[in-house]
Structure formats: C-alpha cells, structure tokens
C-alpha cells in the first residue's frame, strides 16, 4: 500500500518535472524568437518589391493628431498604420539586383565602411598581440598601475574619448578617416582581452622555452600565437562589430555626405529611399553575422573571461 502511494507520488513528481521543463523550453523559445524578430523581419522584407515596402511602411503620410482619439474612434479615419509582415505579397530579388548593379552610390557607402573598419581591425591585432604578451611577461614594479590606466581608458564612453581625438585632429589637421582610424588602432580593448587569455596560459611552458634560449619574438610567434587564435578571432569580431556600427565618431569627424559610412548613411536611405532600405540593411549585416558565426564556438568562453578578471 505504502509502496504504491510512493509510486504515485513519484509519478506525479515526474509529471510535474516534464511539465515544468516544457514551460521552460517554451518560455526560452519565445524569448529567443522575440530577440530574433527584428532580424528576421529585415531578411524577409528585403525580398519585397520596393512599391510594397513604401505602401506598407510609409510613416509620414498622415499628418494627423493621434491624441485626438475621438476622431479615430469614429471609425472612418484616413489613418494609415504600418502594416508589418513577415511574408511579402510576392517575393522578388529586384531590390538586391538594384543594389548591386544599378546603384553604385550605395555600394560606395558599403566601401566606406570597409575602408574604415579593416585598417582598425588589422592594426588593433598587430599592436595588441605583442603588447599583451609584454604586459604579461614584463617584471616592472608599476606594471599593474600602467595596466589600470589602460583599463580606465577602455571603459570611458566614446563621447569622452572623442574630445581628445577631436582636439588632436584639429591641431594637426588630420583627414577625417585617419582621425577615426588612428585612435581606433591603439584602443586598449584588445590588450585587455588578450591579456585575460594569456593569464590562463601555462607560464612554465613559456619559461621552459626561455631557458632553452628562445627569444621573446620566437616564443610569441611559435608558442603563444598559435594558442591564442580563439582570442584573436573574438577580438577581431568585437572590434569589427564596434566599428562597423560606428556612429559617434563618424558624425563628429565626417562632414562630407559621400564619405559617410553605412552606419549613419543607412538611416538617410531609410527616409529618402525606403524601398531600398531592407536589402541594404541585410547586405550591411552580412559581414558581421558571418564573422560572428565563424567564431561562435569561442565567443561565450572568451566573454566569460572578462568576468573572471576581477
């Protein structure tokens, strides 16, 4: 009798567990869908014809006082709501065709972003890898104090760092792109990330190599670098994502409309040529998404290192 009671109890418990598990999965799934919603919307709507996009998303057609609710409730308001949808009325690749073959001015925006980001990412790697190694191996009393300065600079908001950059660029009249690229190359983020990773690297290994007479350059190139590939990959991704999305610096330094990178030009396209917007936005996020997918295995591991630091 007692045994049977126990069995029923256990059965109920299992039932409750699966029920809870189901709820858990459903809620996580819902949250994930909500997170992905804007991106899915971009992708599906990029297959819409330009005319459909304009008719669905034109926002400023009605000059209308919304707060005048009585009028709206009366029913026959000439009120046009945005008709967001995931499925276009008919699917066409014309927007992409137009983007790639008929509108070089838009491709130029993309190119602007590329020549802004790539030098920063490459320079950042070239500077950070040896510097992080040096920081880790150096035996100097005030090393950590120096590193603390790097951390403070790293955590400053862009707007604050922009002031020194702006003053410097004014003083030596740097061209706008260089005024963004040069400080970007020396940003301390990379050194911080790579050093976090190096801290976990077995020091005996490095010391053994040193005892055997290997120079620092050799150790760096043959031992450290091959093992740091994941961190370098994540560094590339983070820096690229940061500067691909450049807004603050660009609106201060770049005065010429044709030199604007995609990040700010896109919002102008959104207003002037709504039909092109979705295709361009998709084209714009492709590089960074590809990069993200390429180093997806390391990302969470690397980012959690940031937390281990302190």
């Amino acid at each position: 009798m007692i045994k049977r009671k126990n069995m029923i109890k256990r059965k109920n418990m299992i039932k409750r567990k699966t029920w809870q598990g189901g709820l858990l999965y459903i809620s996580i799934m819902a949250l994930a869908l909500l997170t992905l919603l804007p991106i899915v919307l971009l992708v599906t709507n990029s297959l819409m014809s330009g005319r459909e996009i304009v008719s669905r998303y034109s926002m400023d057609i009605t000059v209308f006082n919304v707060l005048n609710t009585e009028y709206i409730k009366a029913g026959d308001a000439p009120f046009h709501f945005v008709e967001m949808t995931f499925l276009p009325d008919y699917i066409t690749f014309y927007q992409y065709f137009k983007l790639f073959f008929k509108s070089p001015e838009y491709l130029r925006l993309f190119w602007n972003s590329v020549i802004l980001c790539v030098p920063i990412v490459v320079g950042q790697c070239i500077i950070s890898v040896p510097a992080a190694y040096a920081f880790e191996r150096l035996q100097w009393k005030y090393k950590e104090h120096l590193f603390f300065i790097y951390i403070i600079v790293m955590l400053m908001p862009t707007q604050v760092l922009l002031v020194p950059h702006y003053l410097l660029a004014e003083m030596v009249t740097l061209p706008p792109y260089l005024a963004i690229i040069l400080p970007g190359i020396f940003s301390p983020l990379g050194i911080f990330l790579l050093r976090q990773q190096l801290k976990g690297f077995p020091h005996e290994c490095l010391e053994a190599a040193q005892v055997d007479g290997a120079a620092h350059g050799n150790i760096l190139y043959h031992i450290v670098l091959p093992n740091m590939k994941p961190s370098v990959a994540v560094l590339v991704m983070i820096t690229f994502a940061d500067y691909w999305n450049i807004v603050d610096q660009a609106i201060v330094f770049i005065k010429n409309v044709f030199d604007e990178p995609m990040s700010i030009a896109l919002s102008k396209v959104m207003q002037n040529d709504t039909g092109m917007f979705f295709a361009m936005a998709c084209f714009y996020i492709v590089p960074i998404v590809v990069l993200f997918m390429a180093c997806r295995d390391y990302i969470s591991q690397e980012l959690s290192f940031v937390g281990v630091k302190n």
Partner: protein
Amino acid sequence: MNVTIRSRNKKKYREWVLWLLLLPSLMGMLIFYLLPFFLSMYYAMIDNVVSRRFVGLQNFIDTFRNLSFQRALKNTAFFILVGVPLNLICSFIIASLLKKMTKLKGFFGLIFLIPMIIPAGAVVFVWKSIFDVNGILNWVLYSVGLPMKNWLESEWVLGIVIIIFLWKNIGIGMILFWTGLNRIPKTYYEVARVEGGSAMRQFFNITLVYIMPTGFVAALLSIINSFKIFKEVFLLFGNYPSEWVYLLQHYMNNQFLAANAQKLSASAGIISAFIVSVLFFFFRSQRKLSEHFS
C-alpha cells in the same frame, strides 16, 4: 662570476625586448589618448583659445549651471538607474533559465548574443515602425480600443530606449551570469538541501551571495554599455531630440557641432570623473567582497 654577468645581461636584454614589444602601444596610448586628454583638461580651465586666460573651475561650474546640461544629466541618470538594474535582472533570469535546460543550451545562448553585433542602423527602422505614431504599438492599442500616443515624442520615450537597450545588452550579461552560476560548487546546494533549506533560502543565501562578484562585473559592463545607446538614440531622433531623450551624449555632440572646446572639455572632464569614481567604487567593493569570502 662570468656566467652570472652574462645571464644578467641576457635578462636585461630580454626585458628590453619586452619593452620594445610594448612600445608601439604605449606611444599610441600617449599620443592619441593621454596627452590630448591633458590638453583638453587645460582647455577646460582657460576662458578661450585666443586669450588663454586661466579661469580655474569656472567652465565646470558654468557647465553644471547650464539648463540643457542639467536636463541631459537627469535623463542619463534616469536611464542608467532604471536600465542597468533591469538589464541585470533580465539577464540573470535568462541565465538561470538556460542553466536549467538540458539540451540546446549553447544554441539559445548564442541567439541571445546576436543583438550585440547587429549594427544600430539596421534595426532602427524596426523600432521606428513599432513605436511611431502610426506604428504597430498604436495599431494594437487602436484595435483594443485604448487611447494612443505619439510615443516617440512623449515622456515615455526613455522607456522605449530602455527596451532597445535591454534587447541589445541582455546577451552579454547572460553570459557573465551563466559562467558565474556554473562556478558555484554544487555541494553547497546539497548541504543546504540536507539541512532542510527551502528553495527560497537556497537562492538568497547561496546563489545571490556567490553571484555577487559576477554581478559587479556585469553591472560595470552594463553601465559602460549604457553610454553606447547613443547610437540608436541618435539614429532615431537626430541631433536635436525632444527634451525627454536629451542625453549627455547629445549635449557633448552639440558642443562638437558648436566647436566649443572649453565647454566640451569641461563636460568630458565631468563625465570622466564620474566614470573613474564609479570604477574606484567597484574595485574597492570588489576587493572587500573577495576579502570577505577568503
């Protein structure tokens, strides 16, 4: 004797190589960050670039008295005080939900990270078509029969900005909390269960206490990231937004447009002083926490 000298020389040589490796970064740091920063602090203390008269803290006081600066400060403070705790709570909840899952953990974790890399310019349109006068939100309100609002120009607009902030920043907080949760030894919970601690007590006495250090880091990162929301806000509202979203970054940006080096430097000085004091607070309390635990 001879050997020790040689090895000392060798050691010196090696240190020298390390300095050489560090040199480019040090130079860049000095030229592009530190020296111009001191220059800007000098600018903050003179009356104008032509006469260069020393005025002490006058520029800082003027900045604090400036009405638009006060407005910006208020909005930014509100945004950080509401947005950052919300971000921490949401990412903690998602992290603990993910921890309970058995399958597909990594997959979902990755999905929550994606917003972090999506450029602001690409999704701003989506936010706009949701919250605009004739956007989706108003459409829903209209079909339910509730009064509508011009959300992007009402006093609620900071709430919308906070939603965008959460969408973007939950991922990174979640990753931090996730690793933090995984580092709490399971034996603690087992002991608590044996001694009859309820789930509630377990949460408050074990999880919350041991997640504290992670929480600090996550809060710090969240504060830093909260300044980056300017990208979205700028793309949504432009240079001169309504007073409800006028952030410190707008103030700075408008000073850039006016090319007013003194005011610019003074406000940069104020913000950096704020950030440095937050940092010191964090590091001190962190040290206290770690002393407390060991």
